[in-house]
């Protein structure tokens, strides 16, 4: 656990010094919160109460996308950065275990993604209250809250797993970023389903999505752990 904590702190310290990562983690959520609040304000201006609810629901979907997008930048630069700086071998020469290394790399991306997403959601609710006077609680249903708080860690985990797999084969961050982009697909599925049902998102749907995501995460993480072995890293990674 001590080494895991040391690795996590190093990852975050490095990420904070990387402008691309900081942009992805801080500016993108702020931008989406700004857009969302603006859309709700527009809906409110129409005078039809359902318009602002539709806008509110649409905005909530961003908080299912953010946990898949935020970790991409961190994970890509974390792994491709190690390759680029040739730091993997010195790191692997320490007593750190393969699992600690894998968990360190994965959690360094998942934890900020989930925390930032939840913080952005809190900011969104606060900004909505300030701009339109109140949060439309009839739209903020239990299934939505379950989606944002329950599904986002799974979405982030899936995204990180895919990025780790792709980054292990990529030698430059941009290529890894592009190929990892399909990790956001699971985030798009609930988005499409929810947008077709509008406010009728029900808990069974959320549970079903959660189950599918758990299976996807298990498969991706299993593959990523296989790739994240000392010998594989030293002899196979490009």
């Amino acid at each position, binding site marked *: 656990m001590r080494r895991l904590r*040391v*690795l996590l702190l190093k990852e975050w*310290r490095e990420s904070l010094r990387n402008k691309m990562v900081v942009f992805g983690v801080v500016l993108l959520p702020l931008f989406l919160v700004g857009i969302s609040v603006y859309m709700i304000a527009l809906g409110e201006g129409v005078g039809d109460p359902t318009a602002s609810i539709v806008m509110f629901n649409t905005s909530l979907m961003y908080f299912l996308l953010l946990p898949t997008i935020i970790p991409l930048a961190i994970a890509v630069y974390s792994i491709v950065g190690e390759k680029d700086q040739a730091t993997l071998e*010195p790191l*692997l*020469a320490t*007593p750190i*275990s393969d699992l600690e290394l894998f968990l360190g790399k994965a959690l360094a991306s998942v934890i900020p993604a989930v925390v930032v997403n939840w913080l952005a959601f809190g900011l969104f609710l606060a900004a909505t209250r300030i701009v339109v006077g109140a949060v439309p609680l009839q739209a903020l249903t239990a299934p939505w809250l379950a989606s944002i708080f329950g599904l986002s860690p799974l979405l982030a985990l899936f995204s990180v797993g895919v990025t780790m797999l792709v980054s292990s084969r990529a030698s430059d961050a941009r290529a890894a970023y592009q190929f990892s982009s399909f990790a956001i697909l699971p985030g798009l599925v609930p988005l499409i389903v929810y947008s077709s049902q509008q406010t009728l998102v029900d808990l069974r749907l959320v549970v079903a999505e959660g189950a599918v995501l758990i299976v996807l995460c298990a498969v991706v993480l299993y593959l990523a752990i296989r790739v994240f072995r000392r010998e594989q890293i*030293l*002899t196979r990674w490009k």
Partner: protein
Amino acid sequence: MIETQGLTRRFGPRVAVDGLDLDVARGEVFGFLGPNGAGKTTTIRMLAALIAPTGGSATVAGHRLGEANREIRRRVGVLTETPGLYRRLSARDNLLFFARLYPVQEPERQVERYLRMFELWDRKDEPAGSFSKGMRQKLAIARALLHEPEILFLDEPTAGLDPEAAKTVRDLIEMLRSKDRTIFLCTHNLDEADRLCDRIGLFRTRMLAVGDPVALKEEMYGRRTVVHLASPSPGIEQALDLPFIKKVERLDDRLIVSLGDPDRENPALIRRLVELGADVRFVNELRVSLEDLYLDLMEGRDAKA
């Protein structure tokens, strides 16, 4: 400290290291020499418990490879071919990160000690990416030493360094030798190996020769005395009839005489030459460089022939 028996590593059909038998003692500086692609880095990776051998066995720092890999990694330090530093992190943060991954008591103090030792303390807060090549190499060596390893694997420690920085590294190796650390040194700098190493191993997929550099040269080429003559003295080489002389060659005004024990036989040789009427200008021993030995072995030539 390092013992290997038939250590082998294959990558598919390609054999990178073929049946390596090696015994490196505590406090020894062992030079591991060979061309690019000879399998030196693969050997270091196996001995540092980074990759597994596909055959043979090894004991490193008293632990068997494959059975106590983590323990081995605790006890060895590795300087990789490239410094491999986190460019965005400061020199201090780079070292602190690695110190905390090892069981180092008081990592801050240990990091300060090594930064001061390598004269990097004044720049401790600057990102490693802003450092010169020599400074990065010093920082990487400091990182390999932080946990006070019993064995230090150095892969090309002076490659690309200016003469001053290279000397700093060589002085450091001398200092570590005096502290009873075992050093496994991979280098292309044969002069450096000749000066620093107690023994050298010439390696290309398998070990071609191993031993004390001086003894290896003697074993390969014997000891030869060069007699510089003031006048041509024709036919004198044929007249040299001493029983201990193995071979005499003439090269212009020089006689190159192969002897078994020049320290004992040189006086008799010179006496005989004077008796035969030779004007001896001066006498010296023919020095064979490690480079000659290396090239002969690598090219598969039999130097004795």
